[in-house]
């Protein structure tokens, strides 16, 4: 945390904070790692105030409450060759995120308080940003017996999910939705009927037909979303639907929300940017689960973001080792390393008029904080100084070799994107990416 009375002034940026209904040029003063004061034009915080330690000139920049990614895979413990808490959180910060929620499919699985505590201790010591673990619904993510969700909740888990492994047994899912009402945390469903997806490796459709690859029909997702919605109706439990990729899924969620159920949903940048065409040439970088779908699905996802059916943009950051992608398509791992491209891809939605900038910040900061009950996603006076400063005009080319993440697996390699994180403040540190990034020192100023 920031020591003594050090003060940082972020000056002249366009402050976008939907938690307070603010979208206005102004100044932000930070003291001791908290938001000290906020002044909107024409008012100003005096730069001459004598004890200001550092001034960040944010003219022409967007100033957001730190972004919150409620769906990442940090791979530690157990798969440190893919990613670690240290590298994954550094990638998060580079992408503008100040809090990430890590899925439990580690080795061992985060299905008990000991693993939860390990992750939190490691994240406290080595994490570049805040880490909130998501515990497993069932022991070993096997979908059979409930894990000790109460003890994991007390240890710091903010939600429960068997992500990557759908809970196929409806009774187990019912019990999970019922039991977690005691803690008021959501069950996050990876909606996939694995009998129906039947070892498929990409979306079932004309492209899988042409490539001779086994398809996963959209219905594998839609059916499970519908089942889980009905179980939420039955139990009154809180359901959050991860990585929605289908038009049918969107429709089911819209109906559930209209009928007053406590259902929320997320999608990921790749589902509103790419289609299954990206798999042509047996491109394993585009192999992801759920798979990239069709242009009709993509349009439905955008519409659902626009009308509020989808509450959250998350990354499903799934880093893998190069050897796990540089191989046969059938054998290649599912997943996209998404933390460092998500914000730029999402800013495209603002450019296209799908979302306002305020709505974008809601979906990438405020809404995930609310769904998970985090004290994040706001620039209110007294809140943690988690701040993301973005240059909306900066153009950059996606070069995976320059990622902070160990996972270089992205289908966006070579894309020229607009909008880049310049400064991130989080955990009492300033990460300044405006300078050339030759050394650790340039990246990070510890206050």
């Amino acid at each position, binding site marked *: 945390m920031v020591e003594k009375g050090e003060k940082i002034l972020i000056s002249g940026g366009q402050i976008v904070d939907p938690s307070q209904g603010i979208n206005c040029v102004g100044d932000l003063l930070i003291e001791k790692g908290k938001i000290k004061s906020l002044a909107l034009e024409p008012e100003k915080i005096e730069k001459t105030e004598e004890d200001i330690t550092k001034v960040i000139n944010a003219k022409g920049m967007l100033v957001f409450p730190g972004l919150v990614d409620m769906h990442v895979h940090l791979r530690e413990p157990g798969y440190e060759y893919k990613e670690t808490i240290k590298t994954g959180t550094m990638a998060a910060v580079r992408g503008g995120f100040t809090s990430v929620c890590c899925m439990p499919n580690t080795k061992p699985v985060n299905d008990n308080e000991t693993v939860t505590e390990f992750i939190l201790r490691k994240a406290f010591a080595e994490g570049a940003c805040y880490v909130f673990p998501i515990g497993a619904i069932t022991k070993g993510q096997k979908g059979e017996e409930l894990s000790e969700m109460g003890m994991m909740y007390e240890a710091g888990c903010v939600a429960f999910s068997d992500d990557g492994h759908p809970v196929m047994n409806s009774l187990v899912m019912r019990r999970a939705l019922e039991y977690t009402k005691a803690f008021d945390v959501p069950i996050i469903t990876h909606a996939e009927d694995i009998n129906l997806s039947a070892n498929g490796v990409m979306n079932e459709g004309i492209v899988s037909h042409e*490539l001779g690859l086994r398809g996963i029909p959209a219905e594998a997702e839609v059916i499970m979303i519908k089942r889980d919605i009905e179980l939420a109706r039955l139990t009154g439990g809180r359901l959050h639907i991860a990585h929605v990729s289908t038009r049918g899924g969107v429709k089911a969620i819209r109906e559930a929300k209209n009928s007053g159920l406590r259902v929320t949903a997320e999608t990921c940048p790749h589902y509103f940017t790419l289609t299954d065409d990206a798999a042509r040439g*047996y491109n394993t970088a585009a192999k992801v689960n759920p798979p990239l779908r069709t242009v009709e699905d993509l349009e439905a996802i955008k519409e659902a973001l626009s009308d509020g059916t989808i509450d959250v943009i998350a990354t499903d950051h799934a880093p893998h080792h190069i050897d796990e992608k*540089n191989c046969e398509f059938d054998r290649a791992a599912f997943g996209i390393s998404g933390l460092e491209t998500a914000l730029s891809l999402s800013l495209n939605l603002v450019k296209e008029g799908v979302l306002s900038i305020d709505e974008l910040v809601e979906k990438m900061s405020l809404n995930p904080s609310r769904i998970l009950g985090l004290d994040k996603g706001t620039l209110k006076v007294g809140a943690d100084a988690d701040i993301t400063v973005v240059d909306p005009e900066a153009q950059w080319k996606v070069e995976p070799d320059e990622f902070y993440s160990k996972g270089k697996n992205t289908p966006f390699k070579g894309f020229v994107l607009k909008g880049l994180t310049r400064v991130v403040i989080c955990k009492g540190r300033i990460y300044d990416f405006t300078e050339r990034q030759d050394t650790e020192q340039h990246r990070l100023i510890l206050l």
Partner: protein
Amino acid sequence: MGKRHLLSIKDLSREDITLILDTAEGFKDVLKRDIKKVPTLRGKTVVNLFFEPSTRTRTSFELAAKRLSTDVINFSVSTSAVVKGESLIDTALTIQALGADFVVVRHSSSGVPHLLADKINASIINAGDGINEHPTQALLDAFTIREKKGRVEGLTIAIVGDILHSRVARSNIPCLTKLGARVRLIGPPTLVPDEFRADQVEIHYSMEEGLRDVDVVMMLRIQLERQDRGFFPTVNEYFRLWGLTSERIALARDDAIVMHPGPMNRGVEIDSAVADSSRSVILEQVTNGIAVRMAVLYLLGGKA
């Protein structure tokens, strides 16, 4: 032909296909000679890289390569480093380092020949990838049809059986269509999915309907190991509804021929009475396979 690899029939024009078939005719004459060998590709090395068990395709490629005077090495999964955990790409790079000019590859995953073509310098020939394609099988089938019928254009050709999992069908459909044939697919709906309608074919679920007046019946092997995946209830029922019997073949044109890529399951997809009848050209397909594979090696060889 101007191509380095044979990965997919989709990459070939009608002219390319015709050139291969014409060239194969010349090589078929060679195979009828007393000394069945020409010096055309002497000094070149062909590696048969088979990650899936195969006897007939591998043997056919091996003979084709030997008839062209190349040096042939068979690299099959059971004897290779793959079982020791070597990656596909490392295996391929090793074979390149051994000096292969051609790599004939079969693999259970679709797209592997495309991946190898990206990674190594040799000419890659797809000898079957997953459920995707088996281009030389389609070429030898077209060669056989042309030889028997004098043409492919204008013929009606039924492909019968497990279309969904058949790389033979996925290569034959574009090959025959490019040559001007009308293609019908026949089989249970679980094995003939609607996606195939995009390929300008007719789909029939009834043999009686689909076989009527066809010129060629191309049977596919029913992979018995798929039966427990529930694509059809029992082999018994399959044969009853989709087996090729003497009664059913009578619905085709009087001069219709019967083909099968082998190995056959007698009593599952085809009755012995049909397999052994005068309509059957199944063994001629095997012979023609050598000539067609010689033509492919020869035509790619100029570009390696």
